[in-house]
């Protein structure tokens, strides 16, 4: 059996002169979770549609489960489970009816592959008679995942399954994906949430149709070579403005309660920044050296200008 679930080689796609994908190449191994991470409009949906055989590539090649996505699309469609960006459920059918419908069109029954979906379905089972339209976001997404899994696909392609879903449901969703992976499933998933990257075995950061980097999450963060400082005080707005005045700052961006300052090489000592802030009249700022996260890397790779607006 092929040890690569997905092989993409210099794939491009253009809509009405707008480049949605530009020379995209990456590989997904069997049995791994591969995260395609980037904001809306980065080209994730286009890429996933091409890989799900829903769209033709402009140029380049894509092979999924050892099958070409253009030539053998019909054969391939039986072997992938695809969950589009919007919840692909019938709101007027009940939970059970949705599941049964998707099972029938793939020529199977919910009972046949129940072991695959048991852990997930058990959470929505109490609502099995409720119409899918009346479920909360988290529940819908669990049901949609069940529906995508019901024909026992070899590869799951999930397009932004956690967009618009609250933090708790997102966490639960990723726990499910990890369990599926342990069962041997290959999973290709996209997300605009950078913090979800850590859950993947490998990630690609994508922006404006180009892949910025492909690697394991820890390799991505390890490759961040500039000094990174986290600063916090009681007056974040003033602090932000003053930090932008610091001559050695490459970039200054708020990150939750800390403001992340990327310093120029050789200026990563907290002390220098601390005294600069004291001079500016901040009574008690906290400055510490930080490890870069995926979001730091992403913004840096985007070529973030240091001054916004």
């Amino acid at each position: 059996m092929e040890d690569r679930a997905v092989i993409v080689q210099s794939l491009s796609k253009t809509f009405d002169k707008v480049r949605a994908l530009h020379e995209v190449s990456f590989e997904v191994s069997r049995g791994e979770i591969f995260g395609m991470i980037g904001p809306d409009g980065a080209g994730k949906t286009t890429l996933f549609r091409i890989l799900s055989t829903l769209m033709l590539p402009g140029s380049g090649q894509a092979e999924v489960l050892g099958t070409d996505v253009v030539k053998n699309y019909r054969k391939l469609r039986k072997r992938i489970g695809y969950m589009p960006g919007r919840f692909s459920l019938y709101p007027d059918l009940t939970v059970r009816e949705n599941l049964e419908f998707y099972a029938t069109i793939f020529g199977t029954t919910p009972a046949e592959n129940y072991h695959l979906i048991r852990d997930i379905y058990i959470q929505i089972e109490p609502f099995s008679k409720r119409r899918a339209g009346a479920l909360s976001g988290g529940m819908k997404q669990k049901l949609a995942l069940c529906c995508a899994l019901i024909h026992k696909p070899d590869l799951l392609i999930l397009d932004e399954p956690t967009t618009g879903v609250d933090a708790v449901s997102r966490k639960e969703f990723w726990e499910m994906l990890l369990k599926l992976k342990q069962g041997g499933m290959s999973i290709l998933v996209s997300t605009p949430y950078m913090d979800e990257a850590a859950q993947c075995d490998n990630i690609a950061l994508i922006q404006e149709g180009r892949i910025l980097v492909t690697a394991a999450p820890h390799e991505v963060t390890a490759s961040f070579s500039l000094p990174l400082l986290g600063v916090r005080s009681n007056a974040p707005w003033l602090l932000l403005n003053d930090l932008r005045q610091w001559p050695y700052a490459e970039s200054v961006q708020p990150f939750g309660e800390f403001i992340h300052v990327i310093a120029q090489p050789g200026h990563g000592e907290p002390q220098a920044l601390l005294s600069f802030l004291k001079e500016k009249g901040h009574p008690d700022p906290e400055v510490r050296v930080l490890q870069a996260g995926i979001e730091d890397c992403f913004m840096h790779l985007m070529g973030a200008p240091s001054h916004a607006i």
Partner: protein
Amino acid sequence: MKEEAVISVSHLYKRFGHFTANDDLCFEVGRGEIFGFLGANGAGKTTAMRILCGLSKPTSGDVKVAGFDVYTQTDHIKRNIGYMSQRFSLYEDLTVLENIRLYGGIYGLSRQKIREKSAQLLSRLEMEHMQNSLIKSLPLGWRQKLAFSVAIVHDPPIVFLDEPTGGVDPLTRRQFWNMIYEAAHRGITIFVTTHYMDEAEYCDRISIMVDGQIAAIGTPADLKASYGVSSINEVFIILARGRQAVTE
């Protein structure tokens, strides 16, 4: 809490049949405050927000927005708030300038005022060269920033933002929050919902809704301290999950 409350909610209930979407909500939001309104899907955020915007009436309880009563003075409320959501904000088939003019006109600004405002707004966003582009041709990030500026074009005392940064790239998200800070600095009260927990940290105060009730309210630092955790994300998960385990 600040001395001047622009939103005051006391014992707000909203029921749909037997279902209680908002269960005894009590909170105040002060002038110039950035108030983060968090909650799981289906916790009742949207319902409460609709009431605050004067789009639906509470079942019971006192609610005042910008000093006006939500039962009787919804017209005044609508004139005194700005609203922006991730899902619909600007008209895609109109240009940047046309959208600004439209919203200025809706809120009753004079032609002179609209002209001033649009020039000011475009220069602040550095979008002068795009003023005649159709909205649909703009990248999402630009659209969201413009939508926010348009939502406060009439200088309302309060602006409601419903998941304004969903799906936006990390850099634009920060630029967006920069604008929120600026607006708050000018005295505009910001009432915002988000699924990004790091953004919750940017708020002056946040409330977390679970099953129709406010499960926690306070400054991000206080909340983290009282739950003994290091991020709002963890606070959120403790609250939302704890409650779910009980109800299901």
